[in-house]
């Protein structure tokens, strides 16, 4: 009996997620939220169906009743998040919320399998993040003056990551976190938000090349501090945010080309001078030569991805725990192993769907400041996803960043949820803009009509 359930549920899980992903892309056929209403409803059903199918598989393999309560609790919480959001922010973007919840659920499933204790911790962080996150759209919508603190954001950000550099604890050979009262923070995650607002503010008001240079200088300070902290992943993400925002703001592809050229040069210099960069590049080109040393992580990750095949070996069927830092840096490999390559690819495509929707919101925004913030968030999100999936799959060198929403890690989840909520807040501004535009057109028409009637 057990074998039937575990084998058949593999295909059911992959099939359900495939349908969900299909809907996530079908959404782009409809321009407004009203027309997507039924699509969203179907998505929510599929979302919980995936969750339940995975749960059934876990029960069949382990038979532990404690998971039953945990999953019931999860379903209640995620259902209320989706409902509450719809009630509080009927004008928000629901595709992004659905996708975020789907990814968080996948994260919870695989974390439960990897480490129940960590999954419970992660779950509480998710709940807390949503409680905080629910205020964010309102704040963004109401407090327009937040636009004015540009340089304060920069000062705060530089201080926060600067302090870590000087006092930080060493995790995995890089100084990226510090502990206050038993809670470990990873400030580079929070500073990412400050950095986005700083860049938007600086570029929004910049009128000449000198201001642009000053902005670039401050951005460079951020990146250099992160490089010195050996947090190469975050340094790269900050740099890519900077490049994307400069490009969007100036609409000059020359800056992008220059930035990429500079990045190539900087990587070459870094490769020659930093041994930890060389180690990572070598482990990327050929992880199997030094499989006992520097290549261990990547080769174990590759074993994981390939061993599952298209449909995976089923939850609890593989050995993802042989991959070091599997809950943080290699969660994608664990998912590919146990839930299958198809499932993992679908999950990555959900990230892409979220990215496209975020960029779409930015594209239709009239307000340049918020457009920069939204697109910055979109690029930060997709680039981080790219770094972690690509790093674990030997597509690019490993940088050791988390997979947003899915990986274990408090700061990562909190910051990602807040970023998504900022997008939702800006989404309401866009709806507002639309209403204003309609109002303007109506007024114009009225005026014309009045003029016409006066002429008569």
């Amino acid at each position: 009996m057990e074998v039937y359930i575990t084998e058949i549920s593999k295909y059911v899980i992959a099939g359900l997620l495939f349908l969900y992903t299909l809907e996530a892309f079908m959404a782009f056929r409809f321009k407004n939220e009203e027309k997507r209403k039924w699509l969203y409803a179907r998505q929510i059903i599929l979302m919980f169906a995936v969750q339940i199918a995975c749960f059934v598989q876990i029960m069949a393999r382990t038979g532990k009743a404690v998971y039953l309560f945990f999953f019931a609790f999860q379903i209640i919480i995620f259902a209320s998040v989706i409902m509450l959001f719809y009630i509080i922010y009927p004008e928000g973007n629901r595709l992004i919320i659905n996708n975020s919840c789907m990814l968080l659920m996948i994260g919870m499933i695989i974390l439960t399998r990897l480490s129940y204790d960590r999954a419970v911790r992660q779950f509480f962080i998710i709940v807390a993040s949503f409680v905080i996150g629910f205020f964010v759209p309102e704040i963004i919508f109401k407090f327009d003056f937040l636009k004015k603190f540009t340089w304060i954001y920069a000062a705060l950000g530089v201080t926060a990551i600067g302090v870590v550099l000087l006092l930080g604890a060493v995790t995995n050979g890089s100084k990226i976190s510090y502990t206050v009262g038993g809670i470990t923070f990873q400030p580079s995650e929070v500073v990412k938000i400050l950095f986005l607002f700083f860049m938007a503010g600086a570029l929004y008001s910049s009128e000449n090349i000198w201001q642009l240079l000053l902005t670039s200088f401050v951005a460079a300070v951020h990146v250099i501090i992160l490089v010195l902290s050996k947090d190469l992943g975050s340094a790269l993400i900050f740099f890519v945010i900077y490049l994307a925002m400069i490009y969007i703001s100036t609409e000059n592809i020359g800056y992008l080309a220059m930035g990429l050229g500079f990045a190539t040069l900087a990587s070459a210099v870094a490769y020659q001078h930093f041994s930890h960069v060389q180690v990572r590049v070598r482990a990327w080109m050929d992880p199997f030569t030094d499989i006992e040393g520097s290549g261990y992580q990547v080769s174990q990750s590759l074993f994981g991805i390939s061993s599952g095949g298209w449909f995976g070996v089923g939850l609890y069927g593989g050995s993802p725990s042989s991959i070091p830092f599997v809950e943080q840096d290699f969660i994608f490999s664990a998912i590919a192993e146990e839930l299958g390559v198809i499932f993992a690819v679908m999950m990555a495509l959900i990230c892409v769907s979220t990215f496209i929707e975020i960029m779409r919101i930015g594209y239709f925004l009239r307000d340049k400041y918020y457009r920069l913030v939204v697109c910055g968030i979109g690029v930060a999100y997709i680039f981080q996803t790219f770094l972690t999936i690509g790093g674990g799959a030997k597509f690019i060198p490993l940088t050791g960043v988390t997979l947003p929403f899915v990986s274990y890690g408090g700061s990562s989840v909190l910051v990602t949820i807040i970023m998504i909520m900022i997008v939702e807040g800006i989404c309401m501004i866009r709806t507002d803009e639309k209403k204003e535009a309609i109002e303007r057109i109506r007024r114009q028409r009225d005026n014309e009509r009045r003029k016409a009637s006066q002429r008569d």
Partner: protein
Amino acid sequence: MREEKLRSETKKKKRIRSYPIIVLSIVYCLLFASMLGYICYYSYTNKQEFMNNKYNTRQQILTAKNKRGDILSREGEVLATTELDAEGKEKRVYPYEKEFAHVVGYSTNGKSGIEEFANYYLINTSIELSEKAALDKAGQKYPGDNVITTLDTHLQEVAYNALASRKGAIIVTDPKTGEILAMVSKPDFDPNTIAAEWDNMLKDTSGDAKLLNRATQGLYPPGSTFKIVTSIAYLTEHPTDYTQYRFSCNGKFAKGSDVISCYHGENHGNLDFYGSFAESCNSSYANIGLSVNQKTFNDTLDKLMFGQDLPVNFRYSKSSAEYTAGMSTADVMQLSIGQGTTAVSPLHINMITSAIANDGVLMKPHLISEVKCANGKVVDTFQEEKVKRLISSEEAGILRDMMEQVVLKGTASKLKGLSYTAAGKTGSAEFNSNSDSHAWFTGYAPADDPEICVTIIVENAGSGGSYAVPIAKRIFDAYFGVE
């Protein structure tokens, strides 16, 4: 008109609100498309290799769940199977004991042979879900998939006995398909008791290297069998006028102060190209080798896969032969007759011979024809696969004539006048001055339509004609049923 055009243009411009956002979105979508495509492709194509990596702990999960599958001969005889002993512990059993030791290999204390490279199939199972459920109920493990080899038990037995207590290797293939019919390496070991003998074998310093599969991993000086290669190089430069080649042998050949002598100083008299090959005249071949341009020679070596990876799935050693820029006349002469630093595996010589027999086209040598599930369902089949054309059809034809002459008039005359025709080339490779040379033979039968290709090396035996050719005869006899 103009105004209208202008207006429509501005309208079009207005429609794109921000190019950068579109550009960035497209770039990232493409990046993801290529990354996800790469992940699918890379994980799918490397699945077996990764599973066989000894650092991959997932092997243990499979072996805990599945009973290792059987390895079968082409007729269905069991070459390796898993049995349960009295205490219910799994034990790998090899009914033929030493006979298939190297080619089938072992699976305790590491893995080798078919046990190693077909490990993925042996530890996986393809039985139906209902069968799994039934086995679960009975508390039994799932049977792993069975591997059906191309090995012929009769030919293997003959080859094994023919080599007797000599050190050396034999490899028998079908040149038209690339199927390996038999593969013997000696000295050998009993895979049934390898776990118990392991420590002693590692301690052994006699140089026997019992675990080494000499047929694929042994590297030997090719001796006169290499004259095939020198001939191909010469034919590249002389596609038609090779018939005009003449040489007068007086037992040795001198160029400046460097001298090459024929085997046992024999005087071959007046020879043409065919005669030089049939009599295996070192002097003439030193002369031929020196006449060939360095580039032509190296191109020929490249074409014949020297110093390159061979297209096989199992472990092998790379052969080496090179005509370097600053090479002395003496070394070039040594190269031409297969002495000096040149080293080849019997497998490689067999592949070249097979290609000649198959009109110049190399078929991929393979050991597995099929993988079948325990319930008889076919899981995977390995069809014959053409690797590439090594030499032209004309060159292959000339070489086949030459190899036939070796049997009719030359050093392999023990194969003359039988109920079948054969062709080949002998070799007597000298590796030091104190002991007898390695005896080589590589050839095929029937001469006009080759069905079977054998390569034999007997270490420290003497001349190829006296020690390797009789073994070839026994294998050919067995194949054609004239025992």
